[in-house]
């Protein structure tokens, strides 16, 4: 049948390697000669069986950290935001850094689901489900930080504009309010997209599980999906529309987050290309997190033929590419600080290079711009350890990027008499660590209870879906 990639090469020398660069043919995306049933078996097994030991080994510490996170939030509520290192002038400390960090991570899921879908990148099918899950959980973590940063968290609902007797409204000209809209829109659309894509697969789980309670639960969650032609028809329409709706959201959320900084007159914040620069950074951080999760998962869950080396290599390339955009942004920022000829602009960047936070800046350059360069080497893109080194570097580097942006600009603003250095407290540090606990807890629960791989979508990119039957000969080109 007509397809975007006629001529899947299914004649590999090594059936577990599909990372060749032969331009005359496209590499297969599902390996090991798996049929439709094999894919369902593999993907459903994780959700249907009692979790493996490694799952518990990750889950219990994660829950402990999540508990710590909520305990510290309780401590914060009971005591006040003074437990953080925030001061004047650095009124935005860890909370906003963590918020931007987590929102950024949430971008990769939507990019993979929506933009790669529109670009017909079939390899996205194996990783989109858990990248989307990662998105949702990252946004959950992100949403908590501004909520607890408002000072009187029991009034956090004042963030939302609602008619009230006090005739009191949020400041509509403030990008912080735009953030409320942008992030909540993003969270709801991403959730919808994630869930819509999952419905057929949840129905698969419903049909396969032998546990009565699970059957009822999956039954309710799958909305009575029968897999009829009409269902599929509606599903495809909905999926396409949601993908189109999600695409501008990939740009909008982090653009609005960047406005939090860029509308200010603060040197180092006020620069016009902040929106696309932040979006690229978000995708960068997001793909690092995708790799951080995908590389171990494909080994631990036995998905090596579904999430193949090619998938991982492609993610590495996207990470490297967005990393180069981010590096471009750092370079351009420095250049324009000089080119602007403006006193404060130039000063703040000199401060970044050699001021009290010099270590943060250079660490950022090392982690975000230098270490990930190993991804240029193909061997490094195929070796799980080097991939993890690069991904971890980016995870940390993207956090430091926000640290450098937030803290250096705030701590040394226009008037030297108001300068003060920012030092995080133990609560800051443990809260950040605790947010990882929450993230991992959610993610591990997802691995256990929901279809980790988009079963129905992966099947569409198997060689079989293109009319060649189970095991193949070389007669695949040309159709």
């Amino acid at each position, binding site marked *: *049948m007509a397809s975007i990639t006629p001529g899947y090469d299914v004649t590999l020398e090594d059936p577990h390697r599909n990372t060749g*660069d032969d331009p005359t043919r496209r590499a297969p995306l599902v390996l090991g000669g798996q049929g439709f049933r094999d894919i369902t078996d593999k993907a459903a097994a994780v959700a249907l069986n009692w979790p493996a030991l490694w799952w518990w080994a990750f889950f219990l510490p994660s829950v402990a950290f999540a508990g710590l996170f909520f305990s510290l939030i309780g401590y914060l509520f009971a005591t006040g935001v003074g437990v953080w290192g925030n001061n004047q002038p650095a009124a935005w400390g860890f909370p906003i850094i963590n918020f931007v960090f987590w929102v950024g991570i949430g971008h990769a899921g939507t990019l993979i689901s929506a933009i790669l*879908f529109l670009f017909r990148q079939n390899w996205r099918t194996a990783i989109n489900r858990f990248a989307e899950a990662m998105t949702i959980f990252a946004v959950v973590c992100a949403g908590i930080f501004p909520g607890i940063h408002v000072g009187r968290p029991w009034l956090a609902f004042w963030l939302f504009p609602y008619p009230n007797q006090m005739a009191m409204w949020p400041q509509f000209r403030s990008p912080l309010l735009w953030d409320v809209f942008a992030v909540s829109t993003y969270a709801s659309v991403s959730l919808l997209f994630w869930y819509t894509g999952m419905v057929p697969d949840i129905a698969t789980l419903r049909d396969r599980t032998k546990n009565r309670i699970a059957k009822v639960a999956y039954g309710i969650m799958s909305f009575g999906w029968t897999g009829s032609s009409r269902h599929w*028809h509606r599903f495809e329409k909905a999926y396409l529309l949601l993908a189109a709706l999600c695409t501008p959201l990939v740009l909008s959320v982090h653009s609005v987050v960047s406005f939090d900084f860029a509308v200010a*007159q603060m040197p180092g914040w006020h620069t016009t*290309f902040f929106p696309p620069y932040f979006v690229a950074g978000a995708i960068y951080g997001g793909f690092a997190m995708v790799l951080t999760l995908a590389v171990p998962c494909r080994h631990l869950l036995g998905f090596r033929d579904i999430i193949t080396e090619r998938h991982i290599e492609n993610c590495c390339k996207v990470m490297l590419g967005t990393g180069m955009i981010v590096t471009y942004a750092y370079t351009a920022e420095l250049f324009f600080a000089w080119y602007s000829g403006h006193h404060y602009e130039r000063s703040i960047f*000199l401060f970044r290079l050699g001021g009290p936070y010099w270590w943060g800046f250079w660490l950022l350059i090392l982690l975000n711009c230098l270490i990930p360069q190993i991804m240029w080497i193909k061997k490094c893109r195929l070796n799980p350890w080097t991939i993890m080194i690069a991904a971890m570097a980016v995870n940390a580097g993207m956090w430091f990027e926000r640290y450098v942006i937030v803290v250096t600009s705030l701590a040394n603003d226009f008037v030297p008499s108001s300068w003060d250095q920012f030092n995080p407290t133990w609560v800051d540090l443990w809260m950040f660590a605790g947010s990882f606990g929450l993230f991992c807890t959610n993610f591990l629960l997802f691995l256990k209870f929901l279809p980790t791989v988009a079963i129905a979508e992966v099947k569409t990119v198997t060689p079989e879906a293109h009319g060649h039957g189970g095991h193949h000969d070389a007669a695949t080109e040309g159709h």
Partner: protein
Amino acid sequence: MAHHAIPELTDADTVVLGNRAGPWYHGLLALGGACLVLALILAVLFPDGVERFAFAYIVAYAFALAIVWGCLFFTIITTLFRAGWCAMVRRVAETFAACVPFMAALFIPVVVFVVSGTGIPYPWAQPFGDGAHAADVHDTEHDADHDDGEHHEGEDADETHDNEHARNADFDSPAGPARVIASEDADTHAEPGEHGEDANHAADADHGEEHADAHGGHHGPPTFMGENAKDWGWYGGALEYYVGVKYPWFEGWFWALRWIVYFAVFSLIGVGYWRLSVRQDRTKDPELTNTREKWAPASVITFALLTTFMTIDLLMSLDPVFFSTMFAIIFFANAFTAGLATMILVLTVLQRRGYLPNVTTEHYHDLGKLLFAFVFFWGYVSFSQFMLIWYASLPETTYWFELRGVTTAAGQLGGGGDTFKDAAAPTLGSGWSWVALFLLFFHLFLPFAILLSKHVKRHPFWRVVMSAWMLVVVYVDLYWYVMPVFSSPEIGLGFLPIDLLTAVGVVCLLLAYALRLAARHSLVAKGDPRLHESLALDTNVWAPIHAAGNGK
């Protein structure tokens, strides 16, 4: 659906135009030459016409450059992504990308403008080191920084500055920075004292900067803003100050060196990719695809970096005071839009003449999608630049929008009054405001709504209309960037014939050169190993889910 045979390339796809392109080539060459000559004649006949021609040429050049750069980017980015769908249409992009050396030739008039030392159209390209005014700067700056002192003896321009002053004195109603510079210099002769003081301020600020840099200390802002919120009085001081602060960026030798690097590197990329593709026509060697792909990442990175600097040099430095990190990205958005629109139009013209029968609606659909995406992207980056500058309302950048009629803020350009209200932007509601609104609606809202439709992207008539439309608005956008430097708040529509003739002339010459290149080789990259994907392209079956849903 199932088991469609992949269409075969026909002779009409792989045809080499050869002599058949001759009449077109000569026609374009003659038209282009005639337009430029006519524009020059008009320029000489009318007062200020030559200056206007310089600006019109910059707009026209930027427009032609946008087409070439868009096609260059298309070539390298689709190679980087190993795209198969575009193999049928890629040769058009490659041919335009190979026109970089020709763009270098078209750059010669710009070099002439700069060497003339008049500061038109680039205000930095004039001698600042003249008269009492600048002498003061010299003295003070020598104390602060010896390097800076040297730079005022602009090497290109010394011999012409006498002429220039004679001519500048003729300007009596300053409008737009280009004029202001001139009148500022004329003023200098009349009232050296007042401006000497200005220059001292500037030099002081500079001195303070040195101090701050050395000690990590703190100093007041430069004193250019609001000093003379009248008749652009402050701009002259700011201009001189910033050209000095940005040393050595606006040195003639450095400027020349940069342009040599731009053209050398981009020629290497543009011509290189075209050559590799053309060679593959003969050899059908997939290894050439690997070579192209191997160099694609480096090419894209180089493209991003050098295009940034090139945009500063070509467009942003028309106003050496202004800076914006988004600026180059907006030019890039325009360039890719122009490149795609040109590809669609050129492919249509070729098909009308019976060539390229295997370029199908599907290919146009995909090109149309990219065009749509970049309509959106242009809106996104343009809005971001505007909104952020407008919102922060810092005088050093807001004036740039004021010049272009889109802000009420501050009145930096001088309403003339003492209070904020009196000084409200005189440009608001001027012709440039209407151009800005035109861009908002015709470069963003309307094409967004229209191109959203699949039927428009696939419709043989409407896609041509929309492509032509997008080319026009890209030109208007560049016009809106460049021309207010020459005249604001008035657009100076009387000069429109010069502007348009210049644009048509430059574009015709570019098309002629591209046609000449195209005529020597197949119209399709017939050796591309992914051609079968492009031949079988079917955008209706693109979603993997559809593929399964439709079954076999």
